[in-house]
Each structure stands twice: as structure tokens, then as C-alpha cells.
């Protein structure tokens, strides 16, 4: 089924007025990039769960297409206290706050120390050449879907981070995207560019946080370019409203010996999707991708991961865990490509799910495509329950079924949370995930 164009009426109206107002002030190269992205979107529309469309097979984005979502043209009035009550926050981070997709300088820390951070709108206005060099250059943009085109068509604000050669960033950069959930249902298209020069080291935290339980849509893209020997620790949190839509992607280009570590935490969203692409285009590069999702109610969360081993001696680790409750649904698609010549590739992927309710459902489909010899690869998915021996062992120590179950579920989630190196963030996540875990009894 193809989506009818009338569904995109609102986007069309918004695109015209956006291009007339903001867009007209943007440099020519950007305008034409946006324009072609817009035509691409008109061609593609939103992806459909039709046959052959593997990446979107289990996620129906019809509700996003059907929702009437107006472009958020300005940030709603929210206080910093409101934000801090919901979002992770640590004064020792370099916090950059965005409300409804717009940078809010009063709430943001000023770039100090050795990291250069600018809002994207400012960087465009400044004519920062980094933007022209890197925007839309991340891997697999050609094959990208309608969401990516839509984000590019509406490019306006977000962040530009630049870690210079050999620099170790002295503090984590926290990009906090707050959705006010104001009365009108809105859409925002934040765009982040992160350029890590050779042998630099940095930590990036991206949080997407909803302040109110309303309908809105976050359509986010993060493009990361890692030169040789660069190291990045990337945390990403989805803590949106229960009625929200969130479609995000991070696209990482890795040169030789670069180390990309990602930890994704997805707790709250209505319909959520996160795509993570790592293009391992340098010898000896490595990535370690971890994730934890906990879905309840009627939430739907889809993680799609694509690791592309292009050169010899690269290592990838993929380890996601999910806890499903209520009538929620989770989808996990992990695809690892080992291209010809990518010898000595070492790749492991695993997705484990704990399904706590008979009405919850998980589709876990790790896939491997190996076109090179001499590689070590392994993948696995497990879905199901805790076994009886485990529970008996715990009961034989005096714990009742409920206490045993609580410890097991907690332990299941904690394995990913404890890997968070930043103390402030880890404590926030412990509170967010562990303290909200359901009271449950494994029965046999």
C-alpha cells in the first residue's frame, strides 16, 4: 500500500511557510539540499510495513502519518525546574537545552573548556564550514527512508560538536531535547553533527524527554564522524510522553582504530524507533553497542541496528536487552554485514528479552551477512522466562516468588545500567528503570 499524499498536507503547508521564512535566510547549498530532500520525501512518504521492506516489517508507522502534526515553530514556555524534574541533569555536564526542537540559550551552559559546541542554527548563521562538510554526509543516506528526508527538508536547529585532534573532552556534552507537549500536536526535527578528529576522546549524552503526556513527534538524526583513533561514548535516552512518536537515527562513520561505544536506554514513548548505523570503514575499528528497553502499556519500541564491517580487523559487539510488560511490543532487528576483504572481523550480537505478560510480544531478528572468509561471528536471540532452577535456588535462600522475581528482573536490567560510566547518568537510570519495574511473580 502506498500512502496517499493528502496525508502529508500539513507537512506540505509547513514546508512552504518554513522555506519562505527561515529557509530563505539559509545559504544556497543548504536550501538546495533541503529542497531535494523535500522532493525525496514526496516520493517516498513514510515507510510502509509491506513485504520486502525488511527494516520496517514489524512497525506500522501509519499512526504517525495519520496524526495531524504541525511544525513546532517556537519553543513553548517551560521552566528549567520543570525540565530538571524529568530529565537527567548534572551541573558537571555541558548541558545544551532544546525545547520543541529549538535551542534555548538561557538554559544551556556556555561552551567552556576544550569542546566546541554550537547550536546548529547559530552554526548555519555563522557560515561554519563544518556544517557544509558534514551535513548529510553520514553513511547510508542514499538508502535512507522518508523520515530522514523529512528531517533534512526541515533542517534548522540542533547542535554541532567539534572535538579537535588529540583532545580529550573535559566534560560530557549533554544534548537535552525537551518536548513541551503543548496543546497543539507538533513535530520537531532536531539534527546533530558530531565531528571527532583523530585521537580525540569524548562523551555525548542525548536525551529526548517529554514534559507532558501529549501527542507530539520527534524526528531526530545524529551524524557522527570519527577520524582514526577517535573514541566516543554515546548515551541515548528515550523518555518521551506515552502518546508520543519518536523516530531517531544515529549514523556513525568510523575510520581506522576508532572506538565507538553506544548505550541506548528506552523507557517511555508511544511509538518509538531508533536506527543505529555504524559504518566501520577503517582497519582495527571497533564498536560496542548496548541497549536496554522496558516497555509497558501499549507501547511499541523498535530498534534497528546495522553494522557494516568494511575493512580488516574490526570488532563489533551488540548486546540489547528488553523487558516487556502489558500489551507492549518490541522489535529488534540487528544486521551485521561483513564485506569482502573484511577479514579477521570479530562480531557478536545478542538480544535478550524478558516477556512478563502474555499479551506482550517481541520480534527479535538478528541477521548476519558474511561475504568474507576468516571471520568470527555469532548471534543469538532469546525470548522467554527465567527458568525454574534459578527461582528454586533463590527460594531455597528464603526469598519468596515475588522477591526472587524482583531481583531477577532488576538484575536483568542492571547488567546494562551498571555499564554506564557516568555516575550522574547511571543514578538517574537506576531510578528511572529499576524503581519502576513491575511487581511480578514468575509462576511455574
Amino acid at each position: 500500500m502506498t500512502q496517499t499524499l493528502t496525508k502529508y498536507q500539513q507537512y506540505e503547508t509547513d514546508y512552504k511557510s518554513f522555506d519562505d521564512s527561515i529557509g530563505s535566510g539559509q545559504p544556497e547549498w543548504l536550501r538546495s539540499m533541503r529542497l531535494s530532500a523535500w522532493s525525496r520525501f514526496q516520493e517516498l512518504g513514510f515507510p510502509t510495513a509491506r513485504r520486502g521492506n525488511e527494516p520496517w516489517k514489524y512497525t506500522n508507522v501509519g499512526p504517525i502519518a495519520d496524526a495531524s502534526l504541525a511544525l513546532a515553530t517556537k519553543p513553548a514556555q517551560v521552566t528549567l525546574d520543570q525540565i530538571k524534574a524529568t530529565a537527567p541533569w548534572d551541573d558537571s555536564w555541558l548541558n545544551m537545552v532544546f525545547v520543541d526542537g529549538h535551542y534555548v540559550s538561557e538554559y544551556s551552559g556556555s561552551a567552556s573548556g576544550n569542546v566546541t559546541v554550537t547550536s546548529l542554527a547559530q552554526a548555519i548563521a555563522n557560515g561554519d564550514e563544518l556544517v557544509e562538510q558534514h551535513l548529510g554526509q553520514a553513511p547510508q543516506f542514499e538508502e535512507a527512508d522518508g523520515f530522514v528526508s523529512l528531517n533534512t527538508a526541515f533542517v534548522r536547529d540542533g547542535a554541532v560538536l567539534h572535538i579537535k585532534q588529540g583532545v580529550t573532552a573535559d566534560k560530557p556534552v549533554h544534548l537535552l531535547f525537551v518536548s513541551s507537549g503543548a496543546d497543539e500536536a507538533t513535530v520537531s526535527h532536531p539534527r546533530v553533527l558530531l565531528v571527532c578528529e583523530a585521537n580525540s576522546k569524548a562523551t555525548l549524552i542525548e536525551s529526548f524527554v517529554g514534559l507532558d503526556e501529549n501527542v507530539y513527534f520527534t524526528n531526530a538524526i545524529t551524524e557522527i564522524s570519527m577520524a582514526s583513533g577517535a573514541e566516543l561514548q554515546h548515551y541515548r535516552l528515550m523518555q518521551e510522553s506515552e502518546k508520543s512518536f519518536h523516530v531517531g537515527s544515529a549514523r556513525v562513520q568510523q575510520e581506522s582504530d576508532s572506538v565507538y561505544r553506544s548505550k541506548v536506554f528506552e523507557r517511555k514513548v508511544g511509538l518509538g524507533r531508533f536506527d543505529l548505523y555504524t559504518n566501520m570503514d577503517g582497519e582495527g575499528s571497533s564498536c560496542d553497542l548496548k541497549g536496554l528497553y522496558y516497555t509497558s502499556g501499549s507501547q511499541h519500541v523498535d530498534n534497528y541496528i546495522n553494522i557494516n564491517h568494511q575493512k580488516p580487523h574490526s570488532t563489533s559487539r551488540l548486546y540489547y536487552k528488553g523487558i516487556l510488560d502489558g500489551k507492549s511490543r518490541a522489535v529488534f532487528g540487528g544486521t551485521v554485514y561483513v564485506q569482502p576483504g573484511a577479514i579477521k572481523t570479530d562480531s557478536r550480537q545478542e538480544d535478550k528479552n524478558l516477556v512478563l505478560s502474555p499479551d506482550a510480544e517481541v520480534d527479535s531478528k538478528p541477521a548476519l551477512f558474511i561475504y568474507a572468509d576468516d571471520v568470527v561471528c555469532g548471534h543469538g536471540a532469546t525470548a522467554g522466562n527465567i527458568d525454574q532452577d534459578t527461582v528454586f535456588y533463590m527460594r531455597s535462600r528464603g526469598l519468596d516468588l515475588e522477591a526472587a522475581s524482583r531481583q531477577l528482573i532488576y538484575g536483568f536490567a542492571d547488567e546494562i545500567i551498571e555499564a554506564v560510566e557516568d555516575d550522574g547518568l547511571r543514578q538517574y537510570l537506576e531510578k528511572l528503570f529499576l524503581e519502576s519495574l513491575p511487581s511480578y511473580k514468575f509462576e511455574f
Partner: protein
Amino acid sequence: MTQEIKNSPVLEVIDLHVSIEDKEILKGVNLTVNIGEVHAIMGPNGSGKSTLANVLAGRPEYTVTGGQVLYKGMDLLSMLPELRAREGIFLAFQYPVELPGVRTWQFLKASVDAIRQHRGEKVLSVREFDKLLDEKREIVEMDTDLVKRSVNEGFSGGEKKRNEIMQMALLDPTLALLDETDSGLDIDALRIVSEGVNKVRSDKNAFVLVTHYQRILNYITPDYVHVLVDGSIVRSGGRELALELEDKGYEWLRDQVAV
């Protein structure tokens, strides 16, 4: 607190029949253990030793098809496994289970809390518990590092067994069932584990020790030795029976049973 009197039975197993998946494993076991005593149970592989220990601890997959078990005069078989633990039964597993993600500290704190609450004692503060855990950890010479890790995860065979004994010391049971705790231990670990048992041993508790080797009995002197063959106890005796078994194997007993 009631004063336990030596020689009062803590455990009475009477004509116990147990099946698993319609296969009869225990075929009429009788065993009486008095407070203050140590009983060793020996017997060939597959004879039902672990089954007996596990049924007493309340493992759910077994079906009791006949007989009775009294623990401190209570009908043990009607009690949930956690209640048995809270009432003082402890099983050291032949194959301790790994609990990925469950930290040893949190697990044991919850365990001690549950047991103390059941006894009407106050819950220990973090500091008090730390102190207690340290004490017990030292008994089995276990590394501090191990209590910070997930329960038994990535532990060596010997470390798992030591962990069982540490837990036993921590929970201070009335009746401890040790299922082949000595198997797979090197000489030093065997000594450490045995000394651990001896430290916990008192005239207020009792032990049932399942083992294949008489060498552990050099450290822990049993009051009785029983031989379990094909689901029933075919011979009981004193310490010297273990030596005799070591000498002659089980065949002579099988022959006697056949006769």
C-alpha cells in the same frame, strides 16, 4: 527462645517415596536425624541422593507419592521452599545456579532479611550486614571481589562451592543439607570448606552430608553413615562404614540387597 534438647529429632523421614516424570526414584527412605548430629549419605551415581536432599528443600518438580517428613515436628512436605529456608533448612547445591545480574550482596541481604523477619528479629542495617558478611566471607577465605559480582556468575567450580558454605554460615541453619559440596575441590579448598562446616556446627544444628568420598569425613566426623542404593537406604553404620565402602565399593552391598 525454645531450648533445643540434644537427641530430639530435627528430621524424621518416614517411608518416603518420590517420583519424577512417573519414574520412582526414592523407594521408601527412612532417616532420623537428631539435633547436634552429622549424617553422611553415600551411594552410587543416580541412586537418589540429590533427589532426597532436594525434596527436603522443596524443589517443586518432584512428586511425593508416599511417606511423610517431619521437621521440628512440622509437616515439612506441605511447606513452601522459602518457608523451609526461613525455618532453618539450608541446601548447598550440587550444582549451584548462576544468577546473572543479581549481585551477591543484594541477594544475600534479601535472604538474611527474609529469614530474620520470619524469626521476629530486626532487619540488619547496611553496616551491620556488611560486618556479618565480612565475617562469613573470611570463614571460607572468599575474595571481597566475589561478593560484588553477580551470584556465582563466572565463578570457578570451587568458588561456587565455597560460596554455598559462606551462605550457609550467613543463614545459620538448623538443618544443613550439603550435596557433594566436597566434589571438585582441591585439597586446600576441601580443608577450607570443612573448617567452615565445623565452625557452623554446634549442638543446636544438624548436618546431612552427601558425598562420594570418605576423605571429607576425615575433617568432618560423622555420627552416622548411610548408604543409599537404588532409592533406599541399604545400610547404616558409624564412621567406619565409609572406610569399608572406600575399600570394597558398592557392589558387595548390592549383592547383599539382592540376597
